[in-house]
């Protein structure tokens, strides 16, 4: 068909329901607000790694769905999470991204979380242990035992990642994502891991477009590196496996890293139990990604900031026992394609930035195609179809017409 007129352009594609989505799912601010409440406040998010909280009293601050959160390791070595909000007057308690409560603060004592504003202090279990001039101000009407922090569900699991949920009764974590982690559990849990890389990107695009990019490999045509190191029969046979709760696992194959000039095989530093140069990927609903390419693990976590704005945190991990030389090699392998100055990440971020430019709030709705069928192999778009079917259930919206309630797709279009 030649280029289309406006009516033709807006018509539904000749595909089955579930094989395209309406671009308003990426651009409508009302839908975005629903996503924060219906999805992000109810699921498990891997907010950091236990190696970022190495010692008792170490802390990290993060946020989920605009709610500020503090994660800390107590003197009993337990990792706990709380809202980073003082119950007195709503001040954020800890302002730094990380640190240790072993040090005293201008307003408070060592080993306490102290709100600098009025010097209320909390222990590492979230109990309020000090209210300044408590009796003078509250007499017997309110006491520190009544004003603890808001505790959050928190678990350390699947290779030492710290998982937090704002929901007091989420699906149990093992039930939520144990199945997708089966392919990597032995590799990630054989011995302690350690974060060696952190950077973030704030990109003018919708968070789901980033997850889509991590879910579909058809875009490998954009990556010279992936074309020369990967495009062979084994690559095209990789399977996308759709799992419960909207998760997807991308099966492995052997990557020929040395086909890219200047790069090298990663076989000598494979993660435990991982055959040489294999590459597994786990895409977790609603926007987390675990990516193991032989010698280095990458984890992406999205924090949606607006319908057209997302923060992506990138972590790289190796084995805690690495020698300095081994660690540097893992770092180099990680950076070669995944670093902020690497070959692939820059290209991926250009891709989703370009999508964001065409799907701004208020932009004319259009159809975004997810209709490739290739026997659930690497260029099949069943991963995205599976994701948006799950998204529709959580949102009670039809991805292809988000003003309509959810309707299960026809079997042919659903994730197989």
């Amino acid at each position, binding site marked *: 068909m030649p280029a289309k007129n406006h009516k033709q352009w807006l018509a539904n594609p000749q595909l089955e329901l579930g094989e395209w989505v309406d671009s308003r799912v990426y651009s409508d601010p009302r839908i975005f607000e629903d996503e924060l409440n219906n999805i992000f406040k109810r699921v498990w998010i891997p907010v950091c790694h236990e190696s970022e909280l190495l010692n008792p009293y170490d802390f990290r601050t993060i946020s989920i769905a605009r709610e500020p959160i503090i994660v800390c390791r107590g003197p009993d070595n337990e990792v706990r999470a709380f809202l980073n909000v003082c119950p007195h007057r709503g001040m954020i308690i800890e302002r730094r991204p990380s*640190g240790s409560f072993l040090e005293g603060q201008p307003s408070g004592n060592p080993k306490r979380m102290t709100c600098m504003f009025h010097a209320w202090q909390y222990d590492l279990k979230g109990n309020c242990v000090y209210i300044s001039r408590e009796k003078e101000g509250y007499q017997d009407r309110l006491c520190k035992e009544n004003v603890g922090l808001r505790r959050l569900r928190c678990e350390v699991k699947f290779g030492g990642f710290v998982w937090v949920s704002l929901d007091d009764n989420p699906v149990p974590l093992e039930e939520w994502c144990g199945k997708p982690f089966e392919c990597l559990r032995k590799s990630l849990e054989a011995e302690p891991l350690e*974060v060696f890389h952190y950077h973030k*990107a704030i990109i003018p695009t919708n968070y789901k477009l980033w997850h889509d990019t991590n879910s579909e490999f058809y875009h490998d045509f954009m990556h010279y590196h992936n074309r020369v190191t990967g495009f062979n029969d084994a690559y095209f046979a990789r399977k996308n496996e759709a799992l419960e709760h909207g998760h997807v696992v991308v099966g492995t194959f052997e990557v020929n890293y040395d086909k890219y000039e200047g790069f090298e095989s990663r076989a000598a530093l494979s993660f435990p139990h991982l055959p040489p140069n294999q590459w597994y990927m786990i895409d977790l609903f609603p926007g987390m990604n675990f990516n193991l390419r032989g010698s280095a693990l990458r984890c992406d976590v999205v924090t949606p900031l607006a319908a057209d704005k997302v923060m992506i945190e990138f972590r790289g991990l190796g084995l805690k026992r690495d020698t300095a030389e081994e660690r540097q090699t893992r770092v180099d392998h990680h950076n070669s394609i995944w*670093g902020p100055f690497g070959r692939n990440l*820059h290209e991926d971020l250009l891709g989703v930035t370009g999508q964001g430019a065409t799907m701004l709030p208020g932009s004319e709705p259009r159809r975004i195609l997810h209709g490739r069928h290739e026997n659930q192999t690497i260029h099949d778009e069943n991963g995205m179809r599976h994701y948006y079917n799950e998204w529709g259930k959580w949102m009670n919206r039809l991805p292809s017409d988000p003003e309509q309630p959810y309707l299960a797709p026809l079997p042919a279009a659903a994730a197989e």
Partner: protein
Amino acid sequence: MTGNGADVANVVRDTIYRATLLLDDQQWEQWLDLCDDSFHYAIKSFSPEINRDMTYFQGSHKDLATMVKLLPKHNTDHSPLRRHATVYAVGVAEDGKTASAITSFVVYQNLLDGVNSHIDAGESRLFLVGRYLDTLRLEHDRARFIKREVRLDNRRLDKGSHWPI
């Protein structure tokens, strides 16, 4: 290299500034011509988030030569980068064979692609802030880079870059 300490420091400064202009102009091979065969380049940053010193990129002279040769094979943000550098300190080793220098810089991205080039192209945005920590070999009347550590303050790097900084 002959001359007094001030002359030597001027040669070092001049070499750093010439390298900055070549990087601005994406004259990668000419930039590498200012570097010794033993040159080592790294982009590093300290992350308070993970409480760790990080290497974002590193490579030898050969690695960099290969990388820049392959740049046309890759999709990239075409927005030029412009460095504003000031050499703050130059120190010459006692034996007069090497010098070290600390240069503060900011890198502006003059948008060409941006998000929507119709709107963004032509705008300059602050992209990076940091320091060059350089070591140069002094020989005859010139200085050649043997080591450059690009020390970034940024951990928020947005789209990142394919280019040496």
